[in-house]
């Protein structure tokens, strides 16, 4: 395991302005593509941009600087959201009007977060990332059961067809201010760390706003693209986007998201959740180390 890590670190030396051969470079591009393919698939199934997996994988085993990783991640977060969003919208599962309302808060948060990310020390970003990972692990345990009761409320009522039962589910929205608050926070974290922020919105949308879990995931995923684009324009103008990392990552995530969004509606969320949580615990420890070491 250690030698594999050392090997990868050797290969990715070019990102840190060291010498490399074209062969090394091609291997890294392929590795980045494969990692992104996996992350994209898993991410779109869970309604999460995949950034919480991608950034620790890029900064840890591949030793890519965190700001470069954030830039690559935000691009692939947009790709995931657009790809999965297109599929979900096609199925009518995203609540388009609600997403517009909540996007006011997410874009404002992303704007503030993006500006902060540009100014802040990279070690702080690692530390905040570890903190967010801890919250994500905790909040996944509070995730609601698959089939909690939903009902029309007279506020933004809509319906979709459940992919498992084929039945029409009608529901409305409660506690819109809480949803707006969560959306601002999610947008802020998204802009700061280059992740999607779905993990912050989805529990609130489902538990507090009373949306069905699948609709909350689809709607959140749909909003993430607009949120991420808001901070991506800041990253672009500040040189966070390294094509050598961002391009293979974006292409891989796009491929993975295409696959993930198609199988995602049919897989039970429980098993996915457990796999995901296990990975996140490892990554949280890793990010704490990176914050201390300054990698």
């Amino acid at each position, binding site marked *: 395991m250690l030698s594999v890590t050392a090997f990868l670190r050797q290969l990715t030396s070019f990102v840190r302005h060291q010498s490399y051969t074209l062969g090394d470079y091609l291997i890294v591009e392929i590795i980045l593509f494969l990692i992104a393919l996996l992350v994209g698939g898993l991410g779109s199934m869970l309604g999460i941009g995949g950034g919480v997996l991608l950034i620790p994988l890029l900064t840890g085993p591949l030793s890519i600087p965190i700001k470069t990783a954030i830039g690559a991640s935000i691009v692939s977060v947009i790709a995931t959201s657009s790809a999965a969003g297109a599929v979900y919208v096609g199925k009518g599962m995203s609540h*388009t009007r609600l997403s517009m309302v909540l996007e006011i808060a997410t874009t404002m948060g992303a704007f503030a977060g993006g500006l902060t990310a540009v100014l802040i020390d990279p070690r702080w970003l690692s530390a905040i990332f570890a903190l967010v990972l801890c919250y994500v692990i905790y909040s996944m345990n509070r995730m609601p059961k698959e089939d909690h009761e939903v009902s029309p409320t007279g506020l933004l009522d809509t319906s979709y067809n459940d992919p498992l039962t084929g039945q029409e589910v009608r529901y409305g929205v409660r506690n819109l201010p809480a949803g707006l608050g969560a959306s601002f926070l999610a947008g802020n974290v998204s802009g700061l760390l280059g992740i999607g922020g779905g993990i912050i919105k989805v529990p609130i949308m489902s538990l507090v706003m009373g949306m069905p879990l699948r609709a909350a995931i689809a709607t959140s995923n749909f909003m993430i693209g607009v949120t991420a684009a808001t901070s991506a324009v800041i990253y672009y103008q500040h040189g966070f986007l390294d094509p050598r990392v961002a391009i293979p990552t974006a292409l891989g995530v796009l491929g993975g998201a295409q696959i993930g969004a198609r199988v995602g509606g049919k897989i039970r969320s429980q098993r996915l959740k457990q796999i995901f949580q296990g990975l996140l615990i490892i990554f949280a420890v890793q990010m704490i180390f990176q914050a201390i070491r300054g990698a």
Partner: protein
Amino acid sequence: MTTSSPQETHEAEEAESPPAREVAPITPDLPAEVRGVHAPARAEPRAASKVVHVAPDIVRRVTVPDEGDQEKRDLDAIVHKVLVIGLALSTALMIAGVALDLILGRAMPETVAALSEVFPRIMAMRPSGLLTLGLLVLIATPILRVIGSIAAFIYERDWRYVGITSLVFLVMLVSIMIGKG
């Protein structure tokens, strides 16, 4: 007057989309009880026969999705189209850029091209121009999706959502302008 379940659906839908609109046209000279009735069998024999005579497809007319659902589908269709086209275009550009890089036998550029550099570089057949444009199209896709939604809401005369969506667009514009700083 018997209220059938599809009619309740209509009312809930009306509450969601503000502008009032007519339900599918029903022949106005029908007796009141027939207009509200879902299954013609429940009405008096004389009225029932009249339903068949005047509007044989009344059940279908009452149960077709109302315009609220129709608008939701229209909006979704626009959003769907923008997302798919944006993704296809950016993927094509990125793959073309990578392919050009491989043909020229060199590594990808370290940094993205500045906005003013993108088109000159594409004209000069430089991979960095294609790669940057691919990334920019990807980033622009959600922004275009927001603009498409504004247009869809204007077309529907849903002014409240025109305002809401324009506000989202405004925040993105501010980010583009101030992000340079």
